[in-house]
């Protein structure tokens, strides 16, 4: 392959006149394989060297589908000092935060310790990732805020991690993934919701995760593109489970953020849930109100990937149902499906809605003044 890059990246202009925005889905990466070791007990360092990490599904040496671009990332996002995309704070500042005037950046680390079969190792890795987020990112740039990564399959240790971090202003949400061993409403995950509600922290559910089940509801697909669109189906199952198992009823102050799975499907899922609930209500008597009510009251949505219909009115109709106060702008930096802030929203949006979309909703939800 004849891939070439410029010798030096174009320097972003340090001064910007752009309006401040929030970016609610940024993926920080580790520069080296052992970067977490300082935050891991010797026992786990040794364990990793000898036994490695085992997820709930096989063939995990690489992801089940190669991701279109190296590290699923923008090809222009390699830091000049080396390392994978997203692994350098200074380059992230120069390429993303400064030129786009990002006032609040929410970090969602992937490839953490979630979905690992050894639950003690899972908890240790998640805790290490949380320390690392403070050390390497949030303590060095006040615009950045971290997500508490938890060992999702063990609700109790996950809740303990949340309680330990509660009140620490470096963190603004708890992070789960959409694919787990069981649908997210199941009892085993309730301690996570309870601890998050107590701490006043929203729970973000990011697309991906390796729960040992096929990555689409109809089995293993042939193509990566099917995995990409499958994220919305997966998120729909997770959301239906949260409503129908009674999570929102049981934890009425819980706030959930659906991250990186689109939102155009939300109204139709809610309509379908409402209609079916009217007929089958007695099966789930703990669901006391129409499902759409819980969804509209307790769920927020990040924008990347944003639906891009031919008629912008179609997009506006969907957003109107969801509420302009429910969308959180996100770029997904440094990943390849990155959304450029200045290019995602079509014309015809009022100043107040634009402000809410790009910044206001996020500041309110995450409690940033």
């Amino acid at each position: 392959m004849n891939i070439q890059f410029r010798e030096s990246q174009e320097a972003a202009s340090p001064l910007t006149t752009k309006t401040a925005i929030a970016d609610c889905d940024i993926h920080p990466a580790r520069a080296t394989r052992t970067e977490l070791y300082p935050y891991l007990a010797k026992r786990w360092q040794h364990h990793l060297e000898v036994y490695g990490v085992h997820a709930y599904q096989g063939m995990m040496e690489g992801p089940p589908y190669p991701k279109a671009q190296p590290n699923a990332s923008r090809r222009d996002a390699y830091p000049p000092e080396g390392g994978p995309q997203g692994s350098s704070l200074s380059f992230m500042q120069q390429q993303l935060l400064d030129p786009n005037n990002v006032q609040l950046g929410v970090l969602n680390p992937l490839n953490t310790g979630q979905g690992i079969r050894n639950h003690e190792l899972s908890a240790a890795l998640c805790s290490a990732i949380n320390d690392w987020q403070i050390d390497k990112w949030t303590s060095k740039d006040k615009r950045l805020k971290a997500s508490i990564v938890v060992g999702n399959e063990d609700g109790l240790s996950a809740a303990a991690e949340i309680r330990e971090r509660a009140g620490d202003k470096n963190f603004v949400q708890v992070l789960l993934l959409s694919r787990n061993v069981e649908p997210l409403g199941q009892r085993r995950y309730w301690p996570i919701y309870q601890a998050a509600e107590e701490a006043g922290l929203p729970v973000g559910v990011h697309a991906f995760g390796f729960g040992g089940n096929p990555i689409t509801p109809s089995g293993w697909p042939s193509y990566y593109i099917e995995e990409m669109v499958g994220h919305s189906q997966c998120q729909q199952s997770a959301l239906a489970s949260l409503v129908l198992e009674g999570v929102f009823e049981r934890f009425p102050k819980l706030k959930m953020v659906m991250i990186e799975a689109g939102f155009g499907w939300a109204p139709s899922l809610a309509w379908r849930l409402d209609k079916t609930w009217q007929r089958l209500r007695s099966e789930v008597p703990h669901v006391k109100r129409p499902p759409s009510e819980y969804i509209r009251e307790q769920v927020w949505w990040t924008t990347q990937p944003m639906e891009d219909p031919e008629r912008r009115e179609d997009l506006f109709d969907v957003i109107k149902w969801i509420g302009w106060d429910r969308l959180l702008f996100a770029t997904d930096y440094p990943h390849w499906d990155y959304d450029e802030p200045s290019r995602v929203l079509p014309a015809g949006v009022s100043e107040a809605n634009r402000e809410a979309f790009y910044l206001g909703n996020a500041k309110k939800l995450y409690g940033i003044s």
Partner: protein
Amino acid sequence: MARHVIAPVDEMPPGTRKFLEIDGRPIAVFNIKGEYFGLMNRCPHQGAALCEGPLIGLAQSKDPGEIEYTKLGEIIRCPWHGWEFDIRTGQSYCDPRRFRVKAYPAHVEPGASVVKGPYVAETIPVKVESDYVVVEL
């Protein structure tokens, strides 16, 4: 239409590309197997520096199961979302009706004609005895 001297030919062997700014426009010039092409280095989709992407071929299929791979090294794939453009024409293969990136003719001229012709040689000292890559815009 101004013609700009980009580089002496021997500084741009096949397989290389050169990035420059002309009249405030970001341009990239490619040497592909001895042919030269100029493209606007800004993706019409969301504005990435398009020409930093890899050069690939064109995968097409008449029927499921039949794949033809042609134009090897002539399709540029955007470093952000992977949209594909034909480097010869700037045509998009993802949404050809709506998107095209501006293509600029580029070719080689002998030094003698460059020196006397209507060329703008911004930073390249031009000598009569060598050949130069020239782009028009």
